[in-house]
């Protein structure tokens, strides 16, 4: 099994199989002329679906979103109901000074100002988030590698304030950091190169790229990134979030249309808003929904004036960080070509983490990078550094060099950070003369497959694509968010738990990020702990195993096609 996943990536399987139980369904409306709708029409079972997409997918595309069991959904809503009622009760008690209020208060001098916050705005924070606040912002005091050290915190007043005891929780297995390739290290070539660079260049720059902050390092990085991505030219920015929010406005404006996936990251949403373009949202990874929007947009033009749109930009992400799903890139590209739209691909989580050569989702599907107009990604995750990039045609990058908000107004990247990226990127490319990078890529995809398979076998509902190193495990109920995080920490495993508003209200989840740095022992230890906590909290919701092993079926199905 262990070698399978890696070879699977390389061999490529000419089969396509979707098991989108939930997300793709319920979006019926279809017409005959569309690229991806015919098959739905004359689709008696999933079989014909494979056939029609054979040309687009070179390997199985298995993505699952098991439906929420009804009882669980009802209980979850009840949980929120009870929490809300108690919240009101507590607020009432606080108002009447029966309960001590720990919230910071407005200054006496400004009591008669318009309140800075509306009362209901913070209801959720005060009464729900505060109960389980200890699961977030846990301070760490080591490298965020496969194992990390956490500062122990205690709270004397039910999470309103925290005190550090001075103790350190040593060697907590880190399932939370986006350290996909394990480049978060304080020793080794990357760290050495970064320190050398610090000595040579210092840490700051204190100027912008267009003024006097354009170091030779910046240029070196950009040439390397372009080569890595296989694009003509590239540009690097100091912050991943800002790469999206400050460059999309440079690309589109009034009279342009942005089609955005409903689960896109906040930075893409902000960038789209700042651009002043019209924004329409399509269902998550749902090509029918996207195609319908595209057709309608071109046929009907702009609202009211009915002028044709100046241009249409599709915003998608490579891996969606909360769902663990991978974008259906071959279909998106086919659509984009058919309807002459432009494609903006955010590879924040997928660059380095996907593809046989670590080149992200384009590499994963074996596509041509020049089919994606704007390749965006971050250096924070797989490269263990900070910042973001945009790659594409030379015209695009030249234009951005002049018009990106970041190059004109924001301080340029810190030299040691650049060096970390250069060294780790060269390692992935094998240009450092070792096979270390390739080994890490294999290790990551092996770990991913193993971890996902084991969780699945245990009977958890896990979301997302089988090849995605982001693994969301469904918790559903609000009380289980806190309980899961705490129980895992008791077992010395650091996990991320997320609830509303980062997820739909009933779909609270825990999220694991698999890393190449995780050894099999660590993963086993984590898996055992997850299983134990899963039994304790009754998290093994999946009904697939019980009903004729449908779940593991898909795995054996894959494996049978290996040879």
């Amino acid at each position, binding site marked *: 099994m262990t070698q399978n996943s890696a070879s699977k990536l390389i061999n490529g399987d000419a089969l396509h199989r979707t098991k989108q139980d939930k997300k793709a369904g319920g979006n019926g409306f279809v017409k005959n002329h569309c690229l991806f709708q015919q098959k739905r029409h004359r689709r008696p079972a999933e079989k014909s679906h494979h056939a029609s997409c054979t040309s687009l997918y070179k390997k199985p595309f298995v993505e699952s979103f098991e439906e929420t069991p009804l009882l669980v959904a009802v209980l979850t809503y009840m949980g929120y109901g009870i929490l809300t009622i108690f919240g009101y009760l507590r607020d009432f008690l606080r108002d009447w000074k029966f309960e001590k209020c720990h919230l*910071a208060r407005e*200054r006496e*001098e400004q009591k008669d*100002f318009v*309140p800075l916050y*509306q009362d209901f705005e913070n209801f959720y*924070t005060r009464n729900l988030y505060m109960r389980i606040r200890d699961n*977030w*912002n*846990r*301070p*760490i005091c080591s*490298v*965020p590698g496969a194992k990390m050290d956490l500062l122990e915190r205690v709270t004397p007043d039910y999470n309103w304030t925290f005190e550090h005891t001075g103790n350190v929780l040593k060697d907590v297995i880190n399932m939370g*950091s986006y350290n996909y390739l394990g480049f*978060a290290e*304080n020793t080794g070539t*990357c*760290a050495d190169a*970064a*320190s050398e660079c610090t*000595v040579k260049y*210092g840490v*700051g*720059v*204190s*100027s912008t790229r*267009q*003024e006097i*902050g*354009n170091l*030779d390092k910046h240029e070196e990085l950009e040439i390397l990134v372009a080569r890595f991505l296989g694009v003509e030219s590239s540009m690097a920015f*100091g*912050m*991943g*979030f*800002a790469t999206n*929010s400050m460059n999309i406005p440079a*690309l589109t404006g009034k009279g342009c249309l942005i089609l955005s996936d409903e689960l896109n990251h*906040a930075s893409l949403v*902000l960038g789209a808003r*700042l651009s002043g373009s019209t924004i329409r949202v399509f269902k998550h990874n749902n090509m029918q929904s996207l195609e319908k929007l595209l057709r309608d947009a071109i*046929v009907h033009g702009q609202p009211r004036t009915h002028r044709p749109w100046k*241009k249409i930009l599709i915003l998608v992400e490579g891996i969606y960080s909360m769902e663990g799903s991978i974008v259906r890139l071959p279909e998106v590209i086919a659509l984009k070509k058919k309807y002459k739209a*432009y494609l903006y691909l955010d590879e924040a989580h997928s660059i380095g983490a996907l593809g046989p050569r670590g080149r992200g989702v384009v590499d994963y599907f074996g596509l041509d990078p020049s089919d994606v107009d*704007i390749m965006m990604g971050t250096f*924070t995750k797989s490269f263990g550094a*900070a910042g973001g990039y945009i790659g594409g045609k030379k*015209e*695009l990058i*030249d*234009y951005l*060099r*002049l018009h990106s908000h*970041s190059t*004109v*107004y*924001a*301080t340029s990247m810190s030299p040691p950070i650049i060096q*970390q990226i250069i060294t780790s990127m060269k390692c992935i490319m094998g240009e450092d003369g070792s096979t270390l990078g390739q080994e890490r890529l294999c290790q990551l995809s092996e770990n991913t497959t193993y971890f996902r398979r084991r969780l699945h076998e245990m009977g958890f509902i896990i979301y997302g694509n089988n090849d995605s190193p982001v693994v969301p495990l469904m918790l559903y109920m609000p009380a289980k968010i806190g309980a899961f995080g705490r129980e895992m920490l008791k077992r010395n495993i650091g996990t991320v738990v997320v609830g509303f508003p980062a997820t739909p209200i009933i779909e609270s989840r825990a999220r694991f990020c698999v890393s190449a740095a995780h050894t099999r022992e660590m993963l086993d230890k984590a898996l055992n702990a997850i299983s134990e906590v899963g039994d304790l909290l009754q998290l093994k919701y999946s009904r697939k195993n019980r009903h004729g092993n449908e779940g593991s079926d898909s795995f054996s199905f894959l494996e049978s096609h290996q040879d």
Partner: protein
Amino acid sequence: MASGQQWVLVEMVQAFYEAPAYHLILEGILILWIIRLLFSKTYKLQERSDLTEKEKEELIEEWQPEPLVPLVSKDHPSLNYDVVTGFVSAVSGHISEEMNLPPSHKIIVNGKECVNFASFNFLGLLESERVKLKALSSLKKYGVGTCGPRGFYGTFDVHLELEERLAKFMRTEEAIIYSYGFATIASAIPAYSKRGDIIFVDEAACFSIQKGLQASRSFIKYFKHNDMEDLERLLKEQEIEDQKNPRKAKVIRRFIVIEGLYINTADLCPLPELVKLKYKYKVRIFLEESMSFGVLGEHGRGVTEHFGVNIDDIDLISANMENALASIGGFCCGRSFVIDHQRLSGQGYCFSASLPPMLAAAAIEALNIMEEDPGLFRVLRDKCKHVHKALQGTPGLKVVGEPLAPALHLQLENSSGSRTDDLKLLRAIVDYSLDRQIALTLARYLDKEERFLPPPSIRVVVTVEQTQEEIERAAQCIRQAAEKILK
């Protein structure tokens, strides 16, 4: 009452019997007509011409989008950036013992050695050995990246320490750090001000403030640069508006957003008057101090210290750590009641990877240096005054900005009328100076995006490292260039 109604009914029935037949027939027809009108769709809303699939295909075939980006001419003046490198100096005459100096006071621009009059390295901390060592030891402990946002194992003990230190330094309750200077105020404003709220902004506000305003989707009212009367006029207008609808006025938050030292004009804001207006009209003040933090005031606490204004009177202060602190990132500080809100609502804080610990460590060390040696700020002030004075009387150029400001603007006295030509002239001056070992830069703006585009200018930045002699030389050089180029 009931019997009266019965009586009416009886009368109606009687009238029915008594009515002539033609009358009944007519009424019958009318009733049928009404029913027909109700149930039929004889009228047409508009000519609904549902397109056939073929027509749609043709439309799709026909549509040609604009190119993704307009073509940029290869010789656009700002397409090719100046390339900067560090300085390699031979230590004590031995060529073999070379030492690398970071690009700070001395830099190499496009291969030419220069004295730096362009980076915002006010306190000269870019090449501080102490800062470097601290960053290195942090790198040894934590590695480079944080691999996560603050919420998900991206909070390091160094971040908590830096926040505590910044709060202590600024004498506020709490501070919050961002990983990017530009994103700081741009995230902070929309965390508080929402749709329907009102923000009063100075026309000269910098670009990151403008982006914050745009993201907040609030009503924006611009007042003339540093013109308190104009601001008061707007506030009064709003007061009158409020009286018309007091219920609505009770929920509209209002803010004044200003800069301490304006980056675009090098002017100081009249803070004491602003505070007065704040209490008079009950508006909150957000103050952006990127240019004044670590520059103004006895201890470098910025414009509040400079004017002796109680820092608690300012609701939120934001600054970047990229200028005086010579690191990366930014911070906001103020009372916990205000600042803490950003930990869940500041987009650039929640959704972005946290600041690399080595950069946070560098900022802490820079703060240490600032606290240990307040004399730095006096030196800087003197240098600023010196530069301001030395640049006076340059033919054809006027100095814009306060004598206290560490980043001054040199604008053309007589504009040629075209921005491009003006920029070309100024660029020629910059190039002339570069050839004579003085690194200057044009102040860059996005012409189409700026709300009020500042006039073209050369930016002259003062740092503590510049010697008397270098300043004289720079002033001399600029004068010569101006004489030569502007005639």
